[in-house]
């Protein structure tokens, strides 16, 4: 199969699916090939999307139905420097006079509580290396109410970049435009008022989207198609693509498929969640389909494939267009980490034990701390701090022997969530304590992120510049996950988000174990990237985390230069001395040589993913810093403008940009 690429500067259609790898369809007729060539020669859109990756949409009940439900969704955003283990909260059962709405995907009709149920879902993922492009199509039907307005809220991966929005009603298919959000909202309201069918897609916060539709007549069926890109997560030596289909499958029929182009021979491809049918057209590729009998399986779909070898793998994808050069670098740890020395830990757990945490959240805090304590060895040390106590469990970190752990468990069992005090001083003390040269320090922060003023905890981490790794565990009825994500990001750590379900807690327990084991076995730490022949800039994440066992590192950025070039990653190999205190320094460098041809590749998804990462950095950090820089409204508006410009330039939804699609025809014209 040939691989074709758009050259955007030639074809001048920058939205010719600018974020996909375009491939010649296998079904293309021979007569079609010259047509494509002709288009290229003419400077037209000589590209067509073929293998689009498709994945996940998790539909959450609208906030009105579950006011206390955190709407933060994504599972294991492995490409970020922050891991997130999360589940959307289970839909709260209707209470009192609240409308009886199903806890399943639906468009919630405004005013009268009726719904437009989901009839069918089609998902296709095209996976290229560690990047997935997802086509998701959902069909809703208005069986009753006349000309309704409806909306629904749904989750996508935190780094999902939604770049296409197409609506089909009967024979009418309309592609939406990206516009500044406020402008799109005015247009939508105007169209709704004038009786036009109107569609608006907005992003409420990273990974959480809201879709509104207006004037859908009784008996009409609406197909909503989204395309988005995101990076894959990584688990147990394999890349993992997850589609949270449990709600969709329970509500409707579902078709799901995926095309994998791993870029290296695929050693394993399997689904631990569903029966699948796998075809292997060649060693580097696999085509996967959900087995027909699984179309209504009420479980999230997980697809894993592995290519990892025995050593660290280092890969670089590049893209260049009129906007400049973009790259995505994947640093993958070896699958077998038995040779990586295991290091001792110093664990400091800081828990929010305030009244907000009383009941199930406090039980979650106790369970998480006990799980962490179980992961410690006799050679480790630990300490605990509860926000209602003036003093921590011990004056200083004490050995994690059996007696120490038993005393700690008794101490944490006595905490019931009956007071309130901020956590920032405990966090500051934990980060400021002199490092133990023989142990790697992990600070575990447990709570809902609302114990302190906005940005206060992140401010402490910025101020301290500690080498400690921070694990945030988000627990609570309403969680400010932004604060906890930012704390973990600055602390080069991870976030685990949990609620109260037994299944979720089992996942979080496992995650805590994986994280602590990863910190014990840093494959490479204190990473740096440099290059001869290229100028690398605007990297995300800006502060490189360690390469830990079981967790790849993805860095996206921009480059200038035509090559040939050399890109190097430097890091302290396992067992080497770091600021966190480990003996036996051994600096290791990984080198990748790039030819001019390799730097002139076309992977348009990289530009979109870079823009999405830049927007996320502005949303997480830029706004916080602007808000905490003295209440300077100009700074905030400057950050918002940057987000808006990135959204418009790269044609993606953000908090400042939205997709609008209006059917300008009056329905009587049909």
């Amino acid at each position, binding site marked *: 199969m040939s691989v074709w690429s758009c050259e955007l500067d030639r074809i001048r259609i920058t939205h010719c699916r600018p974020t996909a790898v375009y491939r010649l369809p296998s079904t293309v007729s021979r007569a079609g090939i010259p047509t494509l060539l002709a288009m290229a020669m003419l400077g037209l859109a000589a590209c067509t999307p073929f293998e689009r990756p498709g994945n996940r949409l998790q539909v959450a009940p609208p906030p009105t139905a579950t006011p206390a439900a955190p709407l933060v969704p994504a599972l294991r955003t492995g490409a970020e420097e922050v891991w997130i283990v999360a589940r959307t909260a289970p839909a709260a059962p209707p209470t009192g006079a609240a409308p009886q709405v199903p806890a399943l995907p639906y468009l919630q009709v405004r005013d009268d509580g009726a719904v437009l149920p989901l009839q069918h879902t089609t998902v296709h993922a095209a996976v290229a290396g560690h990047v997935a492009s997802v086509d998701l199509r959902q069909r809703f039907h208005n069986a009753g109410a006349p000309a309704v307005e409806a909306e629904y809220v749904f989750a996508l991966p935190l780094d999902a970049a939604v770049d296409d929005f197409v609506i089909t009603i009967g024979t009418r298919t309309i*592609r939406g435009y*990206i516009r500044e959000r406020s402008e799109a909202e005015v247009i939508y309201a105007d169209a709704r008022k004038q009786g036009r069918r109107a569609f608006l897609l907005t992003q409420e916060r990273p990974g959480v989207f809201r879709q509104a539709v207006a004037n859908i007549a009784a008996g009409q069926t609406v197909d909503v198609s989204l395309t988005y890109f995101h990076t894959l997560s990584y688990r147990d030596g394999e890349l993992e693509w997850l589609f949270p289909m449990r709600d969709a499958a329970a509500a409707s029929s579902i078709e799901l498929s995926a095309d994998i182009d791993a870029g290296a021979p695929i050693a394993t491809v399997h689904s631990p969640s569903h029966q699948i049918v796998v075809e292997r057209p060649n060693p580097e590729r696999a085509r996967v389909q959900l087995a027909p009998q699984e179309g209504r399986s009420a479980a999230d779909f997980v697809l894993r494939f592995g290519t990892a070898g025995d050593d660290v793998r280092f890969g670089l994808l590049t893209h260049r267009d009129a906007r400049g050069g973009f790259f995505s670098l994947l640093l993958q740890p070896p699958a077998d980490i038995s040779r990586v020395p295991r290091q001792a830990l110093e664990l400091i757990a800081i828990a929010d034990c305030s009244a907000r945490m009383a009941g199930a959240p406090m039980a979650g805090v106790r369970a998480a701390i006990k799980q962490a304590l179980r992961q410690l060895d006799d050679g480790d040390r630990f300490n605990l701090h509860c926000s209602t106590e003036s003093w921590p469990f011990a004056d200083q970190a004490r050995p994690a022997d059996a007696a120490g752990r038993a005393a700690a468990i008794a101490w944490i069992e006595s905490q019931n969530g009956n007071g309130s005090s901020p956590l920032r001083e405990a966090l500051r003390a934990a980060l400021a304590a002199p490092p133990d040269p023989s142990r790697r320090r992990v600070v575990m922060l447990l709570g809902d992120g609302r114990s302190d003023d906005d940005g206060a905890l992140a401010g402490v981490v910025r101020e301290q510049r500690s080498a400690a790794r921070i694990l945030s565990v988000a627990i609570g009825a309403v969680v400010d996950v932004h604060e906890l994500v930012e704390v973990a990001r600055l602390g080069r750590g991870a976030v685990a988000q949990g609620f109260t379900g037994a299944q979720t807690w089992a996942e979080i327990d496992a995650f805590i174990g994986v994280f602590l084991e990863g910190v014990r076995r840093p494959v490479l730490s204190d990473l740096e990237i440099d290059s001869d022949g290229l100028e690398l800039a605007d990297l995300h994440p800006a502060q490189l985390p360690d390469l830990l066992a079981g967790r790849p590192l993805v860095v996206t950025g921009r480059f200038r230069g035509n090559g040939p070039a050399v890109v190097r990653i430097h890091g302290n190999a396992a067992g080497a001395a770091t600021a966190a205190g480990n003996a036996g320094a051994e600096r290791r460098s990984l080198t990748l040589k790039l030819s001019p041809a390799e730097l002139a590749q076309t992977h348009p998804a990289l530009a979109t993913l870079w823009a999405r990462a830049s927007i996320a950095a502005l949303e997480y950090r830029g706004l916080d810093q602007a808000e905490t820089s003295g209440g300077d409204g100009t700074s905030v508006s400057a950050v918002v403008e940057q987000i808006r410009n990135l959204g418009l330039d790269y044609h993606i939804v953000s908090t400042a940009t939205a997709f609008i699609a*209006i*059917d*300008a025809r009056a329905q009587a014209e049909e």
Partner: protein
Amino acid sequence: MTPEPRRPTPAPRPATTLLFALLLAAALPLNAIAEATATPASRFVTVGIVVDSGKDDLAAYQVEVVTTGTAQFVGVAGGEHPAYAAPPYFDPAAIRSGNRVIVAAFSRDTNLPTGATKVAELQVREVGPVTYTARLMAAARPDLSRFTPTVRLVVGGQQ
């Protein structure tokens, strides 16, 4: 190519307008006047892009539409012929410029349109008088050869 700008609405004469307003005010209750003044100044129209390729099969096109006045592009639909039923792709940078849009599509179908065919339909929100001008940027036959069909626009969804 023969762009067909939308015919601007004739401007009402001031004296006629004033007289009409006075009569209306006398004839209608106050709440009716309030409703009349709340009528949105904007309107939604469709702008069909019609390419006439004569006897040639139209395998690809790229068209620029430029507006004068206040026009916001709020979507693009496909055309009438099955080969161009899917919405075309567009250039977001052109839209950002504020007064133009570039759309393009190609088809590998063996059944391609000839003669005058609506290949796409812009969805537009207008405020005040707006005119449209179309320019063919490129077109191709299935045999790779470039040619120059004519382009016209049909405003309002009527062809």
